[in-house]
């Protein structure tokens, strides 16, 4: 490893990945991912199912060796110094693998002992993490009786026992009810504020990335397609988003009408994408264009369903970058500015 003038810079890098590639037989799940996460940062990794998020987490947490490329945590190589890395990180995996026959306390005690905690520190830490996730009352019950949300919280608690400096949360709220989700969001923010922990968070919920992350990487089919602060990414889209619902049999006519308006200057040039329920237009200053759009469609004899206008969301960033919508987004949380119809197009490829 060469070092010198850049060493001071590297000291503040919590997670570093360089050209990570992982192949499973024929399939290339990760196709060359590089990223850098600063200490104390909340880094959101946003992408649909099967995009490669979990594979990257497994590599960076020492569970899986990369086919090529390298990764390190606080300067320690994940392949060559796995045990050093394991002491520095805490991990809550997507499928919380918990032994159902143990009680919560037994599971946490075993976990803490494997991290070398003992005596009064062990007791204090168990108390602290269970208070943090609100599981004190359930601690002496068998895990098989826990709800899905309780299991996630126990898993999160167990990943915090040794006060890790870098925390990996793999889809921490997927499948959770809104209350549990909000609780986890609050805890994640607290962890950063109280302990200065670096947090690497994967999610398929754009709201989650938007609300929590300082910086977001959008990953699709094993590649990072965009990276930046949520604000910068949305600004990159540069336009407002107009959604037009039209029935299937009028879809063609609507398309022709919109393209015509764009070519004769009634509507500005801008990207037009088909969605499951109609079309999405990316236009600057959308509010001033709605009237023209409605008039034009009316003239062409197209009867539209709801038309909405919104500021771009990360979903639109994803759409602009990949041509697909994020799967399962907005399902249990209404999106910020307007009711947008989530579609699954392209996300499951």
């Amino acid at each position, binding site marked *: 490893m060469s070092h010198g003038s850049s060493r001071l810079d590297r000291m503040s890098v919590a997670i570093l990945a360089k050209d990570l590639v992982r192949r499973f037989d024929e399939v290339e799940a990760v196709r060359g991912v590089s990223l850098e996460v600063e200490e104390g940062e909340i880094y959101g990794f946003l992408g649909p199912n099967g995009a490669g998020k979990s594979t990257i987490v497994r590599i960076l947490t020492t569970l899986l060796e990369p086919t090529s490329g390298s990764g390190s945590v606080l300067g320690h190589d994940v392949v060559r110094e796995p045990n050093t890395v394991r002491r520095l990180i805490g991990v809550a995996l997507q499928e919380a693998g918990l032994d159902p026959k143990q009680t919560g306390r037994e599971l946490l005690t075993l976990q803490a002992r494997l*991290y070398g905690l003992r005596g009064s520190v062990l007791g204090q830490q168990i108390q602290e993490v269970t208070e943090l996730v609100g599981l004190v009352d359930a601690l002496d019950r068998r895990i098989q009786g826990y709800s899905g949300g309780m299991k996630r919280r126990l898993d999160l608690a167990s990943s915090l026992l*040794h006060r890790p*400096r870098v925390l990996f949360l793999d889809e921490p709220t997927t499948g959770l009810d809104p209350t549990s989700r909000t609780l986890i969001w609050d805890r994640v923010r607290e962890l950063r504020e109280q302990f*200065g922990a670096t947090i690497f968070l994967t999610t398929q919920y754009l709201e989650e990335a938007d609300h929590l992350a300082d910086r977001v990487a959008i990953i699709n089919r094993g590649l990072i397609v965009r990276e930046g602060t949520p604000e910068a990414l949305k600004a990159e889209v540069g336009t407002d988003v107009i959604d037009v619902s039209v029935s299937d049999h009028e879809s063609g006519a609507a398309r022709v009408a919109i393209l015509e308006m764009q070519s004769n200057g009634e509507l500005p040039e801008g990207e037009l994408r088909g969605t499951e329920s109609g079309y999405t237009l990316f236009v600057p200053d959308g509010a001033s264009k709605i009237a023209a759009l409605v008039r034009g469609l009316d003239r062409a004899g197209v009867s539209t369903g709801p038309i909405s206008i919104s500021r771009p969301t990360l979903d639109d960033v994803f759409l602009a970058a990949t041509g697909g919508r994020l799967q399962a987004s907005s399902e249990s949380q209404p999106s910020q500015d307007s009711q947008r119809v989530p579609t699954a197009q392209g996300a499951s490829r």
Partner: protein
Amino acid sequence: MTAATERFGEPGRGGPIDRSQPRTLAAPTGYLSDVAALAGRSIRALLREPESFIPALLIPLFFFVVQVGALGKVAERAFGISSYPAFQLPVAVLFAAANTAGGNALVLDIANGYWDKLSLTPVHRSAMVIGTLIGEMFAVVGYSVLLIAFGWAIGVRFAGGEVLGALGLLGLTVLFGVGFASISVAVALATGSVRATQTTFVIFFPLLFLTPGTLPRNLMTGWFKTAVAINPVTYILEAARSFIFGFRGPVLLKGLAACIGFCAVTFLLTALAFRRRARMG
């Protein structure tokens, strides 16, 4: 990289450990402390599930009662055995020892992700397997003690000395039981498949039935005699019987050698499967 440098990090090599940063609470653990923590969990799980260990105990007991009831008096006269219950007790004990959960608990951990969760800690990797095997050992000791006590209650005595005979039988059985459990542990580690691991149980039949279980070897003929002669469990069983019918040096030595050889093979398979699993992550 040696274990020591890996454990303590490499501050000397320009490693970017920043002393001003808060440290984690994680500290190195001893191998035995890891094993003890994990074995404790296995034993707890076992005691919590009577539905898994009661059948493991009842089935050999059932076979014992039926065999002795059906053949007892006839066999004693025909085979020239002084006590058929005494002849059958070691069979029941070895049956029970081969009836442990083996890799089933381990493969469930792999399937439900708990293996991954443990792998994310700095635990010594092999302690995860050794802890399971110690749990199995605990089960074998439990079954054996109960069955030997049962035998004693119905009048089976150890001709070469009660305590020494019982301890000898127990020791041999524990070694065999752990060796047998290793087979399914190896399959669990190699495949991660719950079904494959459960199916491993079928090797129980040739190993435990192609033996002098019902009649002594000198009365056997033909292919059966040959099959029994090449089965290592034959010699383990004969040595186990020798603890009851009076110690016979050569029989004990052969049995011990067979048991050690058997375990060497199954432990090797487990070690290979473990390395494969550790590489896969």
